[in-house]
């Protein structure tokens, strides 16, 4: 037996052992680390609505906001995960269109976002979706604690027995004055028309002038009326070109005031530079201008009458009208035909950088005969050579010439333009080429010479996003919005589609990344140094940012948890 073992079995066992170990040491499970990854992106037209402070100098972002979605296309609007419980994460609201939506220019999907929050004036903003592309919208909100230029506000408590004339005074950026008179003995009524048993009323009145872009664009839906009810009973849509407007809110006895036994008398002075948009000439005494009220809850404008222009004791042109119920009130022309409504401008960027990281503002101005009619700034304009964007401008005037000028977003008052577009006709559908030369001070319309991959020391980052289900061993490739904020507070908003996006990031700069998904923020910090980096100080966001030694690009993988899987 011993001989058999030593002569036969021992070498056999040793050989077998070696063989088995060789085979056994192979990676047995080829699928180790592989996860079932489901693409759940059945939705269309991912939309990110960024609520910003209308005052560009404000240091805070709106938060604690609540929103509702209304309008003809509301049934086609969903949260990222297909729900209807719309939540604003920080100042961002991401929504998508449902599987059945098929938006086109001729058959757009239209819906209205109503937003309110503490210390912000509630407002409505309508979105018209005409394609399946990702889109961002910047909705300015009036911060009562940091009013933007051209806006005035006052809060007051009035004894009803004596009444009061509340004045919103002129400011350096708002020459217009508003006076609202509450007659002595006025009774207040709630939304059911019942008299509120109270002796005083608290008023918050916000007046928007016409002399600044921030104020002019603060009209609900930037002045595009989705539903306008005329005195003759007809209903239509149109564009308001306001000569000034007021947002009046009153509370009494713990209730919101809706109407009065005696209408309020309002005197609204006109901006001296205001021109009748119909005649494009200064207004004169005796001219009439329609008066409109706006029901925020119904997103509905109602023609209330006309105001006749007069002169006050100081020689200023004023419009007098009566306010029988509370809402937004404006004196404004309402146009159909003189504007092309909400216009999608297709922009193609030519630049000397391919993956820019700095924040730029694109300001579109429509003018005729040297006079600017309307201007609108887009403060998240991303410079990326060859990229295309669709931006939407409301109440675009017909027959005007548009032009885009791009400037870095900076606190410096003398920020130099980095480029822009040639002139284009306001209502045309042609693609607008925007030339931007980032690396050197440029004339208004520079011609880029050479294109480099990145802006200065920025690197190309290929993002790969995954949302890992907590309850199941599967993952999804999300369509999600990512906000990058660097240590100079420069912000980039990136649409990550089915887990993929390409961005530019600078080495040695700390970025805060925030992914907003289904009303939840997942964030973390990353600084790309050396040949790799990982996300730190994370709130649900993890990932690594290794640099490919060959290409110099960063192939980042980012993951966050998802607890809505079944």
């Amino acid at each position, binding site marked *: 037996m011993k001989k058999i073992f030593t002569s*036969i079995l021992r070498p*056999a066992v040793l050989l077998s052992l070696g063989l088995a170990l060789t*085979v056994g040491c*192979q990676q*047995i499970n080829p699928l180790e680390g592989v996860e079932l990854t489901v*693409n759940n992106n059945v939705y269309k037209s991912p939309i990110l609505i960024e609520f910003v402070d209308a005052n560009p100098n404000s240091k805070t972002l709106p938060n604690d906001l609540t929103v509702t979605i209304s309008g003809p296309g509301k049934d086609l609007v*969903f949260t990222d995960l*297909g*729900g209807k419980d719309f939540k604003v994460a920080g100042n961002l609201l991401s929504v998508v269109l449902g599987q059945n939506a098929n938006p086109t220019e001729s058959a757009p999907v239209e819906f209205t976002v109503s937003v309110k929050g503490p210390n912000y004036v509630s407002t409505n903003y309508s979105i018209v979706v005409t394609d399946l592309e990702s889109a961002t919208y910047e909705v300015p909100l009036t911060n009562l604690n940091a009013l933007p230029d051209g806006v005035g506000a006052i809060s007051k408590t009035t004894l009803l027995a004596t009444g009061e004339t509340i004045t919103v005074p002129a400011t350096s950026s708002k020459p217009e004055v508003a006076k609202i008179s509450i007659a002595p003995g006025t009774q207040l009524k709630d939304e059911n028309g019942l008299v509120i048993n109270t002796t005083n009323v608290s008023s918050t009145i916000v007046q928007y002038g016409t002399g600044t872009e921030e104020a002019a664009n603060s009209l609900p839906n930037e002045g595009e009326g989705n539903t306008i009810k005329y005195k003759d009973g007809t209903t239509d849509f149109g564009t308001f070109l306001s000569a000034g407007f007021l947002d009046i809110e009153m509370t009494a006895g713990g209730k919101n005031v809706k109407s009065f036994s005696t209408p309020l008398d309002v005197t609204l002075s006109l901006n001296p530079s205001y021109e009748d948009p119909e005649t494009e000439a200064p207004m004169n005494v005796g001219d009439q201008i329609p008066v409109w009220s706006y029901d925020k809850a119904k997103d509905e404008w109602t023609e209330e009458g006309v105001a006749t222009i007069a002169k006050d004791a100081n020689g200023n042109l004023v419009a007098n009208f009566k306010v029988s119920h509370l809402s937004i009130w404006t004196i404004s022309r309402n146009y159909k035909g003189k504007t092309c409504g909400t216009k999608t401008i297709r922009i193609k960027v030519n630049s000397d950088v391919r993956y820019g990281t700095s924040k730029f503002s694109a300001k579109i101005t429509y003018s005729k005969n040297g006079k600017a009619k309307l201007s609108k700034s887009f403060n998240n304009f991303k410079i990326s050579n060859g990229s295309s964007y669709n931006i939407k401008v409301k109440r675009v005037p017909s027959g005007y010439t548009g032009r885009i000028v791009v400037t870095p977003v900076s606190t410096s008052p003398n920020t130099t333009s980095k480029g822009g577009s040639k002139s284009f006709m306001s209502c045309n559908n042609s693609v607008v080429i925007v030339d931007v030369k980032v690396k050197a001070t440029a004339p208004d319309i520079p011609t880029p010479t050479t294109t480099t991959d990145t802006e200065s020391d920025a690197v190309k980052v290929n993002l790969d996003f995954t949302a890992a289900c907590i309850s199941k*061993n599967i993952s999804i490739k999300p369509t999600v919005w990512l906000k990058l904020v660097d240590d100079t507070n420069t912000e980039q908003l990136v649409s990550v589609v089915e887990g993929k996006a390409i961005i530019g990031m600078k080495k040695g700069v700390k970025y805060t990344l925030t992914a907003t998904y289904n009303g939840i923020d997942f964030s973390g910090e990353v600084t790309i140094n050396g040949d790799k980096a990982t996300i730190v100080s994370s709130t649900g966001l993890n990932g690594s940012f290794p640099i490919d030694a060959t290409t110099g690009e960063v192939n980042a993988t980012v993951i966050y948890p998802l607890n809505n899987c079944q």
Partner: protein
Amino acid sequence: MQQKTTFSLFLLYVCLISYSNVTKAQSLGGSSHKLGLSLNLGTTPGLDIGYAISPKITARLGYSYFKYNTNTTAKTSGEDVKLGGDANVSIASLSFEYHPFKKSSFKLIGGVSYFDKGQIALVVTPTGTYKFGSTTFTPEEVGNVQFTVDYGKQYAPFAGIGFGRTVPKRRVGFGFEVGSYYTQTPKVTLTGDKRLSSMSEQQAKVQENMKDWKYWPVVNLRLAIRLD
């Protein structure tokens, strides 16, 4: 992996002990017979024709063919899935067995094989519904994952050990062989369709996992028939 390795070694040990008796019976004395045929049943089923060059060395020409389809259900990562498998193997080989001991059928085997086909394909289809937020996907909407391993056409050396002779001393003999081909790393594909289309992004990970899959294990039981 450790459990699998331990189990493999245990099986090997049991086989060796069992065959030591067979070995003893077959390995008595020399033989003048030259030609034999061996039927292999195991991981590379097929036939070998053997020619005894000397009492200790036999040359073998063999062909292995293996095609297998399966459709079953399984639970993987907690998920119920349907598994559709398809293995397709076609190997021609030239090898030599060397019997170092006169009184034993223990042998060392070495040779080279030509892999005409060495493919394994697997289709994994989730059978349950998946719900993300308010969105539910049926199995039909989710789709499936296709995983293939292809060794391609190649020459691969083979080494092994065993018991029993391809040209047995008696008319019929039994044997056992264990060994491994040394192949090139197989080419892996991982794809998905419908909602699983992004699975292909993980192909590189699987390929990396299989970079050492160069050892194709061979474990065969053999029935040998002397032809002369």
